[in-house]
């Protein structure tokens, strides 16, 4: 039986190998951190304050308000000092709910790093949706702040290393992540 189970695992692993890798979550283009750092007009650490929903331009949107923290790129608070508003598709208004997969949702109190693009309506959207969303938490063992990209949620198995591996940023110390982002920004500026 053990052999049978091992056989199944190997077959599963073989399937995993075949599935790389443009991201489609609804359908997203995979972007390197350097490209995202270049494309984002604002990169900011922020704490979620509240969510609201409403209609605009024929769609239901969720508007999330953040308290802006350290800004790594651009100026996030020119429009409303200290605060950032992000609009993302989907949400519930009255008797209707709009569902869009791949859109990040934020919960009050959450600490995040977000890569932003301005919209034409005086607020922001998240670049690449889940791809431009990084959640911050403390490593329970070291107490260090670490960062994980939303799109790192799904792991694939590498039979060579016999480990599940993820694409994207996962459990990276915040200081190291900042260094990588700032290095990418500096390279883009050269």
């Amino acid at each position, binding site marked *: 039986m053990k052999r049978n189970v091992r056989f199944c695992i190997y*077959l*599963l692993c073989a399937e995993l190998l075949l599935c790389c890798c443009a991201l489609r979550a*609804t*359908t997203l283009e995979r972007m390197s951190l350097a490209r995202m750092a270049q494309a984002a007009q604002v990169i900011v650490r922020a704490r979620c304050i509240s969510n609201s929903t409403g209609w605009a331009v024929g769609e239901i949107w969720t508007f999330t308000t953040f308290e802006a923290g350290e800004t790594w790129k651009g100026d996030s608070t020119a429009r409303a000092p200290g605060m950032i508003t992000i609009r993302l598709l989907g949400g519930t208004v009255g008797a209707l709910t709009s569902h869009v997969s791949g859109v990040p949702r934020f*919960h009050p109190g959450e600490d995040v790093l977000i890569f932003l693009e301005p919209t034409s*309506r005086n607020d922001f959207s998240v670049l690449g949706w889940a791809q431009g969303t990084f959640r911050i*938490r403390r490593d329970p063992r070291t107490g260090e702040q670490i960062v994980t990209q939303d799109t790192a*949620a*799904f792991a694939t198995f590498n039979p060579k290393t016999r480990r599940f591996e993820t694409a994207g940023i996962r459990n990276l110390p915040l200081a190291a992540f900042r260094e990588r982002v700032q290095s990418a920004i500096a390279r883009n500026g050269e």
Partner: protein
Amino acid sequence: MKRLAAPLIATVLIFVIAAGPALHAYVFDTTIPSAGGCPQPDRWSLSLANPLTRQWSTSLPLAPPTIITAAPAQTDAQLAEIEQAIADSFAAWTGVSDTTFNATAYPGLFAPIARVSAQNACSNDGETNVDGLNTICFNQASAAFTTGVLAFTRVITANAPGVSVGSSVTSTFAGQILDADTLFRPDGQGTFATPAGLATTQGKGAYDLESILAHELGHWFGLDHSAVWRAMMFPYAPPPGQFLGDRPTAQTPDGPLSDDDRTAIRALYPDPNDSLDAGSIRGRILPANPFALAAIPPTSAGRFVTGVVGASVVAVDADSGSVVAGTLSGWTCNASNPPLQFDGSFDIERLPLGHNYVLYAEPLDGLVTPADLGDALDTLCPQNGPAACALPPVNANFNPRGLPSSQ
């Protein structure tokens, strides 16, 4: 019934039970009824009198062209080629046997694919109009597109009976889908090619239109992303120039799909006459040490997390080694006592009978919040009312290991 050889668990045990409380398996989108109660899976209510209307906008971006075909641009042949790709993508789902909208067993539930010329056919006015027409748009700009977003599907559901939008039917239940639209990015950040278009010089570097459409149409029908590799609903697509599964044929229109996709759509639209796929495996993912969950705050008054939430549970055919279906462990809900109980339950339904299955539970590694998994978990807890609850964190803090085979 089924023999479960469970090759699992170091700190986690799976208890397979013969029957459990109602739980929606796989990864469906859900809607919370406005009157309260348990989350309901999103799905269509189709009948011969109310078939699924579907249309696509023939307005195509020209500078640069984003839809690549073998036929010359701006010709009837090009439109026919695109429409064939759309039809084949629908047929992948309607070709799945033993669903209530299988094209052979239940013909007539899908209206013919119509064409419209309006560029912005996916939402057509200022503030509040969702038209109830289900549309695919290739040339509609949207404020939702940010860098890196190539296409998305927006699905509108009713939160209660008696609701309609535009020309949609009036809902008869919470979770009924009233409108679905798919928008492809029109500004050239991505290009999409039909199967014949992929073989052209211009099609190099383009995404396979059929693979992306079939994935988006999975969202139309109420499916969220799957954690099973190679599933059409897995969130990672093949690179540009490649496609998922097999190309559809008249004999196997559902060739692009995986068994996980088929099982999921059967579970969401179960054919009452299906006696082949009537199996189910239910159970809970529990920590070997129950104190491991003690630090998680209660999710509602008096209700604590009592199981592993967010483990990926996969059923593998023990003989063929193919992944048959997968779901996430999480919760149960009692309609008369609605706040969710996050007890680690899972339910894999519509499994073919007469097979042996091996069950795997794997953590979704890293910091995974419910939001990462899309609406499937994010919409489970309303903020107010009798069903109000707080989502617990997804539990990725366990290590599966093999156990001796068991019955």
